């Protein structure tokens, strides 16, 4: 058997889970693209912070995070949590339309958002501004897609929304995203948690 990657185990980092969430979310939104050869390190993290600054997300927070001594673990965690909260609460349709249309396809994305494909194209091309309700749904889907991209290619991401799951009482994720869904509803929250369980799966 040939092995093509090795890893050096460094000092424990208690903020590991938060960094993974941030990077996964940034990929789902379309700020960065991670692949098997991407080096997860300070350069990538600084690049993500720079992109968040440019997008106007948690600007003061990202500056504070850059200034925190990485050895101050509790302080790093506190600011990192605040950056993540800001990112979760900041729809970025100017990035998300392109990413989600590529991953899900415009027909599937329009179905999940409960809008017509013609409206989708108008919003995606900036001919009309994205209504708040649609922007919130788009952002919610982007965060889910960020988690799914750690397990599936684009076809797999689409199929994931249609596979019945025990954790959803035998329903498929798409069934819990009915025409009036909001990110705060129980069904969509369960779908989000299911996707996130992939990122933090402890199983082998």
């Amino acid at each position, binding site marked *: 058997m040939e092995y093509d990657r090795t890893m050096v185990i460094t000092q424990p980092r208690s*903020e590991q*889970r938060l960094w993974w969430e941030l990077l996964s979310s940034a990929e789902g939104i379309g700020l960065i693209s991670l692949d098997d050869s991407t080096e997860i390190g300070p350069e990538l993290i600084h690049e993500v912070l720079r992109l968040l600054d440019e997008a106007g997300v948690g600007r003061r927070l990202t500056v504070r995070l850059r200034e925190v001594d990485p050895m101050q673990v509790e302080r790093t965690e506190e600011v990192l949590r605040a950056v993540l909260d800001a990112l979760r609460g900041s729809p970025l349709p100017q990035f998300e339309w392109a990413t989600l249309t590529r991953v899900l396809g415009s027909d599937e994305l329009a179905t999940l958002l409960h809008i017509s494909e013609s409206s989708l194209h108008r919003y995606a091309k900036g001919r009309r501004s994205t209504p708040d309700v649609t922007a919130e749904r788009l952002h919610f889907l982007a965060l889910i897609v960020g988690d799914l991209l750690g*397990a599936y290619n684009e076809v797999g991401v689409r199929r994931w929304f249609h596979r019945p799951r025990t954790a959803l009482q035998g329903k498929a994720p798409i069934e819990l995203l009915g025409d009036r869904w909001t990110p705060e509803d129980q069904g969509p929250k369960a779908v989000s948690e299911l996707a996130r369980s992939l990122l933090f799966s*402890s*199983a082998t």
Partner: protein
Amino acid sequence: MILFRHADPRFPFIWESEDQPGGRWHGDADGPAQYLADTPVGAWAEFLRHEEIREPEDLVTVRRALWAVEVDEVEPAAQPQLRREVLSGGLES
């Protein structure tokens, strides 16, 4: 001894943090706990069960990393004592 771990290809497989969601052998924030399979097939089986993948069409869409981890062979410090229904039960157990 070489053991195996199915993981998100974007990130290192190993947990370094206490802040780890609960799993089969540890509770929430009770980490870091590392889960490894003794065969590559076992690691794949864990993933497929987690994702409830039963169709070949789903299998070909999977994008994951399979890590081979060299581990020192040592006797475990303790043996878990679990009831048979826990060892062989469904997701609820």
